């Protein structure tokens, strides 16, 4: 510090040339370290994804391969896990197996099941639960984003009395542990007949995601210059017209990002679904661990279910990567 503090005061930015030669000198070494850095980063990324790869591999293993000791890296791929996941089966006795092996008209599912000496009884609960997940996540997202856009616009553009307190209150909903909120909601739903209904879950997820979508969308709408609307108002648009024709189109990216985040949150949600659904409206997350309970651990089936469940999220993560930072911090941090 002491060496330079006197001299370059007058120079300031004009001395940049001198500085940049210095920085250039450093950069041969820096380039090398940056290659090392990149290599380390790639290795870490691959290590972090081992669990995901492992699950994807297990999904294509047979039941004995999935629990082989030591774990199998190379194996004959099989769709047994997916068949176990999607169907309910019955064990056949030896004569039936022999008879079934004679037959040539077996469909694909029965053929795979026959390898384990089983026959397909019907469709399992999983496809229905996946559909429930889709319906509940989809509809609740539509509502939470729609209400969220309206509230975010109002909070962004108008002086709302007690605005900061209201916004704080809205965000604080998100801080509550699900188990805490569930006890009274469980009682309320039981009274109103909403327990284990799609409507009840949609209502809950809408409220749950609304606090998030208001904050995230407010961040996006704050960034749209007010001048656009003001110009439109001067041109004779009403407030609502300006909102519809100026603000909404400008906020498309924000709305899309919020939609996807809401979808992921409701798609992944476990605690509420575990406590507030049983058969009718049960979503996929609480049922994946329950595959554990039925007739020994069907790891291939569990892995197949998990894989089917995770693939959409992984794809979306890549699509959303520019907005991840915003999304996970409720829109608080925008740069980066």
């Amino acid at each position, binding site marked *: 510090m002491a*060496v*330079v503090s006197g001299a*370059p005061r007058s120079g300031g930015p004009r001395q940049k040339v001198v500085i940049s030669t210095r*920085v250039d000198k450093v950069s041969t070494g820096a380039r090398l370290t*940056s290659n090392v*850095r990149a290599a*380390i*980063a*790639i290795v*870490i*990324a691959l290590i*972090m994804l*081992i*669990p995901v790869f492992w*699950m994807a591999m297990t999904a294509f293993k047979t039941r004995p391969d*999935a*629990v082989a*000791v*030591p*774990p199998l890296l190379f194996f004959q791929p099989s769709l047994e896990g997916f068949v176990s996941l999607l169907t309910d089966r019955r064990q056949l006795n030896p004569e039936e197996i022999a008879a079934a092996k004679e037959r040539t008209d077996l469909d694909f599912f029965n053929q795979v099941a026959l390898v384990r000496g089983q026959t397909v009884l019907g469709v399992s609960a999983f496809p229905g639960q996946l559909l429930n997940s889709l319906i509940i996540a989809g509809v609740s997202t539509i509502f939470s984003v729609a*209400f*969220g856009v*309206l509230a975010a616009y*109002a909070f962004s553009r*108008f*002086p709302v009395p007690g605005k900061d307190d209201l916004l704080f*209150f809205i*965000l604080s909903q998100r*801080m509550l*542990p699900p*188990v*805490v909120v569930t006890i*009274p*909601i469980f*009682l*309320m739903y039981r009274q109103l007949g909403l327990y284990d209904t799609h409507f009840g879950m949609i209502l809950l997820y*809408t*409220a*749950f995601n*609304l*606090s998030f979508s208001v904050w995230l969308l407010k961040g996006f709408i704050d960034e749209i210059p007010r001048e656009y609307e003001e110009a439109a*108002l*001067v041109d*004779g648009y009403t407030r609502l017209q300006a909102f519809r024709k100026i603000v909404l189109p400008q906020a498309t990216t924000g709305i899309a990002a919020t939609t996807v985040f809401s979808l992921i949150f409701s798609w*992944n949600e*476990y*605690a509420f679904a575990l*406590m507030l659904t049983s058969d009718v409206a049960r979503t996929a997350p*609480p049922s*994946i*661990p329950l595959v554990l309970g039925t007739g020994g651990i069907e*790891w291939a089936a*569990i892995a197949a279910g998990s894989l089917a469940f995770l693939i959409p*999220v992984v794809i979306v*993560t890549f699509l959303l990567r520019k907005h991840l930072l915003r999304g*996970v*911090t409720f829109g608080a*941090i925008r*740069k*980066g």
Partner: protein
Amino acid sequence: MAQTNAEPIAQVTPRGAGGRRQMSDRRIVQLFILPTIILLILMNIFPLIYSLYLSFTNYSVISTDPPQWVGIQNYVDILSDTDFWRNFGITGTYALASVTLQTVIGFVLALLLRTKFRGSGIITTMILVPMMLSPIVVAVFWRLIFNPSYGILNPLLGFTNINTSPEWLGEPGLALLAIVIVDVWMWSPFVMLLCLAGLSAIPEYLYEAAAIDRAGGLFVFFRITLPQVLPLLLIAVLFRTIEAFKQFDLVQGLTAGGPGDATETVSVQLYQLAFQGQFNTGLSSALAYIVLIVIIAISNLYIRALNRAREG
């Protein structure tokens, strides 16, 4: 069109002279905010008031008896119960361990990825994948990975003899560590993401100035990099602390509080109290309120830090 061109200018400024327009703006505000407020009152305020009432009763959802007022008995029972304090300790240990590890690992990852290289965007996104996954699904497939006989973790760590290799989820001393490992795996990317944002915002001239001063690497790190990233790092830490105190999915999916009650966090205890065995609704509501107060205390800190970061 023509006759309105005087008025709209007035409505742009909120407290302008256009009284009639002003009303309409206010109505828009009310209309726009109303659905949100109604839904939050219905799904949050009312349930919370209801459970506050229940926390002073001995109600159980499976009994036919109406709730009976017992005063603060539930709170006294919980606060004098050693199990509760032990579970609180477990939750605290878990939160401290996982948040510390996440912060260090996340920060190091961010330092590795701060300078762009070919494919760094893809690598960053790949590292971010775990935090987007469903915690319960993550917990379930980590159970396979932790399995002492056919799981892949032990062989990867060099334990090849099944008889001596650690039984991650079966030993009381290891089970909490196993949960911490999964939590760190899932959420270090979150800290990394925030740190990357912080790092990218550090003005280049600070480093140039340090280079002129021939400042050492450690000096630059502690005097420039760390202080500049600190606000965002703090947010990440507070966010993760709240989440760790709320944590339910991972623990329930990995150990459900076991073995014995070695990993019974407060959330798991709450779930068991409310929805299993005795369905002790009154008592669990009281516990829920105690958890709530702790969470509110932490989130207050969080939001204050958040506001400071927004302003800065």
